[in-house]
């Protein structure tokens, strides 16, 4: 059952094409200050990104950023956030995948962009979100024996003493 979207966003080319490609994967769309964000099913993220990258009318060939937001104490607690851009068409897109707090995991994009490697490692390090299929999912910034994930909202700013 495809999600109901605001009519002015449902008409956009990228939304139309994504709905044709995978109607059930698109969970919602919002726009704020002229920037559109699509909410997508975590299980389909890699498929969608591959489609967005290959499709000749969309051509999202630049992975600009991978990050996450902790919505604690709401559930689903995490959002994995992806920023894409097209080098030739010069348009941008934000994808957000809601993840549950008890076992946050999502597919890795390292097979599509080698640069996703460090970006995903940083998200794993600071949020504790696991990326399935990542070849080398180790901490990036914190020491390897660190306990906890500092950017989570239940982690105190001063750290644990």
């Amino acid at each position: 059952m495809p999600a109901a979207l605001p009519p002015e966003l449902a008409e956009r080319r990228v939304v139309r094409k994504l709905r044709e490609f995978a109607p059930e994967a698109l969970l919602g769309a919002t726009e704020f200050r002229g920037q559109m964000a699509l909410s997508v099913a975590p299980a389909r993220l890699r498929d969608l990104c591959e489609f967005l990258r290959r499709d000749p009318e969309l051509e999202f060939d630049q992975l600009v950023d991978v990050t996450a937001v902790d919505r604690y104490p709401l559930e689903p607690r995490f959002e994995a956030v992806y920023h894409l851009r097209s080098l030739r068409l010069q348009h941008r897109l934000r994808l957000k995948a809601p993840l549950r707090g008890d076992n946050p995991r999502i597919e890795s994009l390292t097979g599509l962009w080698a640069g996703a490697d460090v970006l995903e490692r940083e998200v794993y390090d600071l949020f504790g979100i696991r990326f399935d299929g990542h070849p080398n999912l180790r901490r990036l910034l914190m020491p390897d024996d660190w306990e906890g994930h500092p950017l989570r909202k239940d982690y105190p700013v001063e750290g644990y003493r």
Partner: protein
Amino acid sequence: MAEPVTPPPVSAETMVLNVGPQHPSTHGVLRLVLELDGETIIRATPDVGFLHTGIEKNAEKLYYSQVIPLTDRIDYLAPLSNNLVYCLAVEKLLGLEPPPRAQWLRVLLTELTRINNHLVWLGTTALEIGAMSVFLYCFREREEILNIFEMCSGQRMMASYFRVGGLALEPPLDFYPRVDKLLKMLPGRFDEYEDLLTENRIWLARTRGVGKMTVQDALDYCITGPNLRACGVPSDLRKEEPYSSYDQFDFVVPTRPEGDTYARYLVRMEEMRQSVRIARQALDGLPEGPVRADAPGIVLPEREKMKAEMEALIYHFKIVTDGFAPPPGEVYVGIESPKGELGCYLVSDGGPRPWRMRWRPPSLLNVQLLSRLLPGHLIADAIAITASVDFVLGEVDR
């Protein structure tokens, strides 16, 4: 603290060489684990995080305006670019537009920042390849740029000069002739550097054909900025997504098709000349008017007003004690920083502090590119390539 992880060797015939974290060629605290077959690198693994200071976490407990000094310390060679992207992101969140004079002064100062960054890049890269004197010349010119930053902000490096809605204050009057003098001097100095390097046989031997990459590599490794333009792609956010009135300036985006260390050098040299051109246009055509937006409750009122008007005093007190609260929402702003696309992703929950601030660091991705560029090269070339991609460890680790 546990021992850092060293990746297991590919075979028993190879040797693992640890470069850094304290090594002059790493420009800070970067650890490079090189696996060698004889003197040839067969695998390179950058290890980062030694300078992690939790700036993104710290930003979550500060008011929006209190975050600005933190941003300087991320990429400490281009502090005003950091100020700019953060202020643009907050302004976008608020739907606020700074006045034209502030936008032009921001352009002028961020272009000086670009020259500052590229001068340090050129000096240190040349130093590592063995051209000691270029380093001294570059730092001589950089000193004057830092003096100009000090004139307007009071700080040489950590300027924190931009504010949400404009600038901290109008630059002093002798700022303009001094910038004018600098812009007249710089092109001749760039010629001097090029005389020393561009056709120098040693320089050519050390850089040409070294560390080659293709457009496909750049896309795979999320590379932007001068490194991408050195592969022949004329991608520049100042042209493609103009911010801060860059659309009113006339400049060329330099590219080179080769994708090697020499191309990265030539692109940055030309960029500095273009930056002088942009800064000249900004200085000559600077619009009149205020340098702060008229937005009570967000932008601090003028000092004189506070002495005469009750409301101004109240707003000042409110902004300082309670901050200001943008509407709930999220924005991403990317600008063309000297190292590539610098992005700031802000999530607001409607409160006076950012719910989440994410810094998209071009330096981190430039470092990661080393694992692609170094294999197949000699150790001596590794030093040249590492220097040529341009990164700052403060931004890599944040």
